[in-house]
């Protein structure tokens, strides 16, 4: 399996790459990464640079074709699945769900209350709703926000808004965080590095699904 880290988990939210690799090792997944991994082109496609995105797609397709691809990033997942042709791609939340169901990872459930933010790319756009929830519920109590699944509120980062209009992205993150706080959860979980990046704040701990499992799932790496 090829673990396609994505630019955010590879360069900015490296804790996500770290947690993901530790989980893969723990579950005995045979995987490799690319030393010269290239941007999938998602940011270019969403901001209108289609010609430039096409270059990324062509270059990446040469390397990715024929591989079983795993992504951390909901944006990479959508792009590799919908904007590329003929790739076999899955999101980490789907793989984790399989691993949990097949008892490949031993997790311990606590009575911690957590909530989950559906990323637009993963949920509304690609219909991945259940898998991350199943994984979370094997470890903690999931308390849902007012807007969930296909009705989930966008965190504010997508579509190039975070770079072009950071104040709008911040304002939207505040709305989403206020919904999260209303659940009285202890942790807000996402399955998208870019959502995590936008939602991070000083009051409520925000973790990627992989980090959450590593930190609170009771995993034993010495086994």
């Amino acid at each position, binding site marked *: 399996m090829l673990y396609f880290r994505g630019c*955010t988990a590879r360069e900015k939210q490296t804790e996500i790459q770290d947690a993901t690799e530790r989980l893969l090792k723990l579950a005995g997944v045979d995987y490799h990464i690319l030393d010269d991994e290239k*941007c999938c082109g998602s940011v270019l496609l969403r901001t*209108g*640079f289609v010609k430039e995105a096409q270059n*990324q797609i062509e270059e990446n397709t040469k390397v990715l074709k024929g591989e079983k691809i795993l992504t951390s990033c909901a944006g990479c997942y959508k792009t590799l699945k919908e904007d590329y042709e003929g790739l076999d791609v899955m999101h980490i939340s789907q793989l984790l769900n399989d691993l949990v169901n097949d008892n490949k990872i031993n997790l311990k459930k606590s009575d911690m209350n957590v909530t989950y933010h559906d990323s637009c790319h993963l949920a509304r756009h690609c219909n991945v709703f259940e898998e991350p929830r199943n994984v979370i519920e094997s470890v903690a109590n999931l308390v849902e926000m007012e807007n969930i699944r*296909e009705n989930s509120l966008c965190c504010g*980062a997508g579509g190039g*808004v975070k770079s*072009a209009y950071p104040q709008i992205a911040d304002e*939207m993150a505040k709305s989403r965080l206020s919904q999260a706080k209303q659940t009285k959860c202890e942790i807000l979980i996402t399955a998208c590095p870019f959502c995590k990046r936008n939602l991070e704040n000083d009051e409520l701990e925000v973790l990627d699904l992989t980090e959450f499992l590593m930190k609170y799932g009771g995993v034993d790496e010495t086994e």
Partner: protein
Amino acid sequence: MKPSELETMRKSFNTVKERSSSIKDIPSIKRLTSRVQEIKKYSFDNKDELFNQALESFKRNDIEVKFAETSDDALHIIDDLLEEYDAKVIAKAKSNTLGEIGLKEHLNINIIETDLGDRILQLKKVDNKPVHPTGPASHLSVSEIAGIVNESLGVDVGPEPKEIMEVVRSDVLKRLESAGVGISGANAIAAEEGSLVMVHNEGNISIVSLKDLHIIVAGIDKIVPSLEDAISVVKLETTFATGNFVTSYMNVISGPSKTADIEKKLLKNMYGAERVVVILLDNGRSEAIEECLYCIGCGNCIVHCPVYNAVGNEFGFNNYLGGRGVAMSKFIEDDETCFNSGLYMCTLCGLCTLNCPLSIPTNEILENMRKLSTDVGFYPKAHGNIMENVRKNNSPY
């Protein structure tokens, strides 16, 4: 918009959401929704035939009809009519299309808004763009509104909705005593019957339509095959805009006021308008993307749009608010206007489409428009830098 206005707007939107979400999923409204989807698709596919049929039907009904290719054309037609009637004051109903052509900015005469929300915004004078197609002043609190009314009308009302309404109503009626011309839009046009359907709760459109001359400006996208279709469209609009099945009033105008009660001789202008003039406006619509023209103006997209909830009417074009308004601005105006209206403010999240009764794929439309916009050089500088980073380093960072 000020933070307090955004806060009030979000509260108003939550009320609308609660009301509309309780009825939009019931079986009869679901059937109505799919019926209107078919109607709008059929109307687009047969737009030329329906346009010609509407022209014929209007003529048969003694409604004068004029075609305006641009805003300027529409304004010239209106100028000529107002000159003919020597109009000093005109009664105006709420209309996004009249906002689109910039009627108020263009005319030097006294235009009186008859819709309470619009009248409040008119009295506010500055920074007075509407925030919702049917609830234009949903961002203003009752005390802010009292302040606006007191300052502009030289009165002293308290922050009491009823008191405010009564003061504004009597002032509007007094000002309209001498008005001989009313102007409005239309919510839907029935081609077969040559009828114009208008929905309202205040009764104000009735006032406008009872003036000697009633001018109606409507986009060519408002034309549907029949009166039943037009009623379906406005009912769905009402449901999604307000959460109610119907408005208090639904005016169907199919000709000037007339009687033949004396020896069967036709007389005009019994109570209502002696003359009805319809201006059918293109203004970029014939170049617009099909799905953009499905819009029935309910505003449910902006009520659910997280960007709109964060920034308000800065995201949108003129009276066309939110992402779909941004898309229309390209056709009504140009690429630069589209950029400035917020082409890149959209996070492409897709909540608008999910909540649109016509499922207009606004995020896809905007994503495609960005390609065309970057081609002609209108894109945020930050995105240009990111593109360069990817090109040089294979990473946006």
